[in-house]
């Protein structure tokens, strides 16, 4: 238990100390809000800034939590994981600590953008909305931390990893409806979006943030918070269940994989980065 807390605190400290990273993690999302919000100004969506903000917040949570893959890989390269390995600390506790800290940092980043969002377009009418928003951010943060940790345990080459990470993150973000409404996507890409877990996270989170809970199914589809796959409607609640199932799966997979990963296979001679884990 102490291990979990210590690693959680470590993750938070690293987040707070990385001021440059923090600033840039805020600039990008707000830039996207500005650009895409302007593009969709004359479209069907009634409040494009709020619509974009909700998408951008959840994308930030998603990307930040997925970043656990990078930080874990960094920990392997820096050797910190080796220190963990020869200590009597339980590996399950280490995995949990890493997951919790990543999910917390992701949620904090989401909250920062949300706070800015409250000044430029998001309005909450119900007192309970912020609580729902917070809970969904934590849940979605945990889900994708699991995915991130799972990726990290499968890494064998530190350099290709960065490319793979971008190649995974970019399409997942752009084909989730967070920036571009699914209805505007070409048909092939739309099918890709249907198998993208982020699509469901976005839809669910957008419904919560924009307080669309009372709409009819048809309106939900029109507002892009319910997803219609060839007439089959995935409601926000179903979206949430889908996310939970995927999340539990990856949390379990990543923990098991982390416990069994043989970090000693990683040959970390600093002079030959390409040979690390070859």
């Amino acid at each position, binding site marked *: 238990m102490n291990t979990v807390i*210590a690693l959680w605190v470590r993750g938070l*400290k690293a987040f707070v100390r990385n001021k440059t990273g923090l600033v840039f993690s805020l600039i990008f999302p707000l830039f996207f809000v500005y650009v895409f919000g302007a593009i969709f100004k004359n479209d069907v969506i009634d409040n494009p800034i709020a619509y974009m903000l909700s998408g951008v917040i959840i994308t930030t949570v998603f990307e930040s939590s997925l970043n656990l893959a990078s930080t874990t890989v960094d920990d392997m390269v820096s*050797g910190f994981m080796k*220190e963990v390995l*020869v*200590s*009597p*600390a339980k590996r399950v506790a280490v995995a949990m600590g890493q997951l919790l800290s990543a999910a917390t940092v992701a949620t904090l980043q989401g909250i920062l953008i949300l706070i800015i969002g409250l000044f430029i377009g998001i309005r909450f009418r119900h007192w309970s909305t912020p609580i729902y928003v917070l809970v969904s951010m934590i849940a979605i943060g945990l889900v994708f931390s699991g995915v991130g940790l799972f990726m990290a345990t499968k890494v064998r080459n530190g350099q290709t990893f960065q490319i793979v990470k971008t190649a995974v993150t970019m399409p997942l973000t752009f084909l989730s409806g967070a920036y571009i409404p699914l209805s505007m996507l070409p048909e092939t890409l739309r099918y890709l979006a249907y198998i993208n877990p982020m699509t469901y996270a976005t839809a669910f989170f957008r419904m919560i943030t924009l307080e669309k809970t009372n709409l009819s199914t048809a309106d939900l589809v029109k507002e892009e918070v319910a997803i219609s796959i060839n007439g089959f409607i995935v409601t926000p609640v179903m979206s949430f269940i889908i996310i939970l199932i995927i999340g539990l799966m990856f949390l379990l997979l990543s923990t098991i994989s982390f416990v069994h990963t043989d970090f000693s296979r990683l040959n970390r001679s600093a002079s030959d980065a390409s040979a690390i884990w070859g």
Partner: protein
Amino acid sequence: MNPIIEVKNFTKKYGNFTAVNDISFNVEEGSIFAFLGPNGAGKSTTINTLCTIFEKTSGTLLIDGKDVTKQKSDVRSTIGVVFQDSTLDTKMTIEENLKMHCVFYNIHKKEVEERIQFVLKLVDLLEERKKLVGALSGGMKRRVEIARGLIHYPKVLFLDEPTTGLDPQTRAHIWEYIIKLQKERNITIFLTTHYMEEAEICGKIAIMDGGVIVAHDTPYALKKKYTKDKAYITTKNEEELEKLLLQFELDYTKKDGYYKVEAENLEGLLKVLSEHKENITNLEIKKGTFNDVFLEITGKKIREEA
């Protein structure tokens, strides 16, 4: 003296390749034990297995009576490890690194501060405790690692090339710490090094080559067995010296105007010197070094790898 590390018939195979082939040795409690050998000799495999990272193929490896493959958690609490490459968390301060380590090793919160003070004083880093590890020099990082390796009061400290890449002054300091530790706390130190003069400080030395231990003894005994003292003589009368050397059956080689004479037969050498003393312009007697021992035993391999 009790053996704290016991290795019996340890073998490690990677597929068809045998990295370590049926080695056995003991390390006495409270001693400094050096493990030498060219790259690829099986040193790292042995150390990593002792540190519970690798699995053995066969044999028994015990540390403080505990099996390193079956009682991993117990063994891990008993040992401290300083790897060749840094394993510090560079984004955190020295103090935070030590505290994290204490959490991993389940050290009671009340004791943590006292222990941090103790180990940092030992490596002279008490003033720097709030500094970020990433901002420290290589020598300081190594000292932090040694301090961290000690904070849970291990019985055995493994040091994998603790002084590689450090300047001579820092190396001397690190050795001071190591010897201080061994004397004051009776910690057993198991280390590898490439610096032969460092190996001589150790109580016992094992030299590995090709997966087996080719020599295992005190530095003095190894030197006596594998090196010969040599006399370097320059003379005014080369003809006469050569005649004398032949007469007393001393092996010699002539190079750059001096004679290099094997001093194994000390009596003969002294006779040559006394009979030839008027002509000798310079005389130097060199003791065999540990480098010679190492080259004598593993010479060919080292040259190939270098």
